[in-house]
Each structure stands twice: as structure tokens, then as C-alpha cells.
């Protein structure tokens, strides 16, 4: 693969994994799921 394609791949997976890791780490810090 070209260097640009590799960089795009790595950066995007870091963005997705980072965003989802942050979101899941915050789960349960707000309200309750049940009424």
C-alpha cells in the first residue's frame, strides 16, 4: 500500500478505537437505565 493509504488507515482506526474506548469508559456515569 502507499504511505498515504497506510497513514489514512492507521489514523482512522485510532480515531474510531479512541472514540469508542472513551464512550464505553464513560458508560454508567450518567443516569440509570431503568425508570
Amino acid at each position, binding site marked *: *500500500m*502507499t504511505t*498515504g*493509504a497506510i*497513514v*489514512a*488507515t492507521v*489514523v*482512522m*482506526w485510532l*480515531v*474510531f478505537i479512541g*472514540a*469508542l474506548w472513551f*464512550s*464505553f469508559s*464513560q*458508560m*454508567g*456515569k*450518567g*443516569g*440509570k*437505565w*431503568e*425508570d
Partner: protein
Amino acid sequence: MAEVRERWTSRYYFLFAAIGSAIGLGNVWRFPYLTYKYGGGAFLIPWIIGLIIMGIPWMMMEFGMGRYFQRSAPGIFEGIGKKWEWLGWWPVFAAFLIVAYYTVVMAWALRYAVSAASVAWGMGEAGAEGAGSYFFGTVLNLSSGPGVLGTPVLPILGFLALIWVALFFIMYKGAGVIGKVAVWTVSIPWALLVILMIRGVTLPGAIDGLNYYLTPNLAALANPEVWFGAFSQIAFTLSLGMAGMFAYGSFIAKKADVTNNAFITSFSNCATSFFAGFAVFSTVGFIMQSLSIPVGEVSGAGLGLAFVTYPVAISMMPAANALIGVLFFLCLFFLGIDSAFFLAYGGVISPVMDKFGLSRVKATAIICVIAFLIGIIFTTNGGLYWLDIVDRTVSFYALLITGALACIVVGWVFGAGKLREHVNKTSDIKVGAWFDWLLKVVVPAGLLFVVIYGGFMTDIPAPYGGYPTWAASMIWVILAVTLGLSFWLQAVKTKGPPKEVSGK
């Protein structure tokens, strides 16, 4: 007895249902092509920007307003002010028409899953040459134009009936069962995409395809067309503007999170798109090498990619052709089914129950039958043309216009700050005042940019898709009729929701 709104039975069931509704056929057949077309890796920059400043705030609004009013779309806008109820009904009509033709595409996928077991369009170069005529001739028996409707194609009609029966049994017990089914209808296509990706990247020529998919052309960022492509993809990929996410939000408990669920749903959807691109473009590279043709002759978006290009690759594969073919079309089917029950249940059935007080079983049965009957039009010999025209009408114009108007009304009339305070009370992640301005200005501006630049500026000077003027004009006729029906429903007095759905 206190009336109780139906609820997701667990947070994970809700997340799977929301993610499943967002992930659909477009993740596979639209996103990878747009990325290649609009600058490769560079396209990902405006795409992620669009997700953050437009997609996520829009989703937070739909979840949050559903949770606030404990109603589906029409009830929410009626709650803002009686004169706004029509704005909840217009996207309901859009969802209804979308699911009517979306299920027909799913029927094609099932038809192809059967055909792929014997690679019915042929093996080797003969199969590659015959894939197009197999789709348009054998499968669709396509007529010469939208004026020649012909008769329903029976195998497609049969699969369509099966799909609606399955949808009825998934939906008639409500959110509790939908959440449980969604776990499977999301996990199965994810697993199939992994298999297809592994098969794709191990084919000769795959790297060339991936280079076309991802090599950045940063100069493309100066082109407004690229930003249009990115913002339009965000507008279409999250299943917003179709009324359903309001209803899904209304099934969230009153003390449960909103913002973090929107983050997880949005990023999961976009990660799936990005991943699907590897499966698609590795296969594109394989076709380029096998047939010695340039990328421009292979890659495409939409139906052509799924039902012509991929079958070409299946014909040319060195081994396991039938297996990969069956898995690919089953993947398409499963990608579609949770979007279908989202559109039908959240988009149509829940609003109908809220307005007319029908039981869930009765409302589900009525909507399934009517949507099936309308779907028959799209199974005819001329059905593909009408599918395209109706898709342009509701999945483009109605979605974008009602989405922009909904954000404006919620942001300026209901109050973006009031919504923000409501969701912040119980959400895992608190959002600041920036959310108010994104909802009030940026999201509507982004959606209007897409509809004006990509819609009015092309469809008004010349008929859409090169269709005869009378056929292309149906876009404006359908928009006007559904808008009129929305105002009529606003004027209709009813007894309100049944006990099983009311949050009062």
C-alpha cells in the same frame, strides 16, 4: 392504572437496535465509492468533521426529543406546538415509502443469495460479462422505461412477501423483541464483513484497490463537491430524518443516557463503513487485475456495485465462489433487515399507534400489508425506475428538508438550551453550549447545503436521472402529496395512544 411507554429492556439491546438501524446497505455500496471518488484518504477529513458537527448533534436531538416527550415524531412536534405536528408526519411518510422499496432491494439480495449458490450468472470471464444482463434481464426483467410498468416479477414478489412476514413477527411485540433480534442482525453482518474482507485482501490485486480507496489527495479538499459528498454521506448514513430515531429515543427510560448513546451509535456506524471499504475495494482491485481494466470501469456506487460488480468478482474468484457469493448477499440482507424494522416500527407503526390508539398487533399488521402492497410496484418490470425516482424523492429531498426544519424548530422554538439541559441531567457525557449552535445553525445549514447543491441545482434545470419530464416530475408531486397528507393528519382529532405505549 398508570400508562407505561414501552421500553428497551437493556441498554445494549437499544444500542444494537440503533446501530443496526444506522448501518445499512449504504455503508457498503455508497461510502467506499464516495471515498475513492472524492480524494481517497483526504475525504475522511470532511467526513469526520461532518460526523462531529452535524451527524452527532442531529442524532442527540432525535434521541433527546423522543426521550423528553415520550412520543414518536408527530407527538413530539405536537408537543412543541399543535401547528408543528405536520413536521412529525412528513418524515413518517418518507420512512413508509423508503421501507416499501428498501424491502424490495432486500428481496433482490435473497434472490441473489439463492442464485449465488450455483453462480447462476456464470463462471470465469463469461460470468463476468454476463453479470449485468443477469441482473437487469433475468432477475429484474427490466422494461424499457418508467412508463412501461409490466407485471410483478414473481420470485422477487415471493421473497418480498417472506420478508414482510418476518418483519411482522419481529415487530409485533415491540421494542423488547426488536432489541433482542438486533443483536443478531448486527452481529451476523459484522461477522460476514470480516470474512468478506479477509477474502478480499487475500485476492491478487487487492492492494491496488485499497490504494485507490485510501491514498489521500489533499488538493481535493479545496473542491466544494468533496464537502458536499462528505456531508451528504453523513446525512444519509445515520438513519436520521426518517422519524424512527425519535421513536427509538422515546423508548429510552427517563433517567437514562442520551448523548453517549448517540456517540456510540454514530462512531460504530462510521467504523463499519470504513471497514466495509476494505472488503469492497480489495475486490475492486482484484477485478481490475483479473480483467485488465481501469478502476473507473469497475467501481461504482449503489445497486450496480452490489448486484453487478460484486457478482463479476465472484465469477472470477479462484476458489469458493459460491460460498463467498452466498455470504455476500446474506450480508446485504442482514444489513438491511434491521434498517427495515427501524423504518417500519420506529418510523411508521409507533407514530400510528400514538396517534390513533391502535394496538401494536393491529397497527403492525396494517402497516405491513399496506407497505407490501405498495412494494409490489417496485417488483414490476419497470420497478427499478420507480424505485430510483421514489428514492430520490424521500431518501434525499424529504429526509434533508424535514431534517433541517426539525433542527430549526427544535433549536429555535422548543429551545436548544432546554434540550441540552434535559439530556445533560442524565447523560454520561455532558455537552456544552456549543451544542445549541450546532443544532440551531450548523446542522440545518449543512443539510440545506446538500439539498440545494446536490438536489435543486441539478434536478430543476434538467429532469432527474435523464427520465422523461413527466416521470421525474413525480418527485415534486410525491413531496407535495405527502406534505398535504401531513397537514391533514395534523387536523385529524383522535383519542391518543393506547395504554401500552403512552408515557403519560
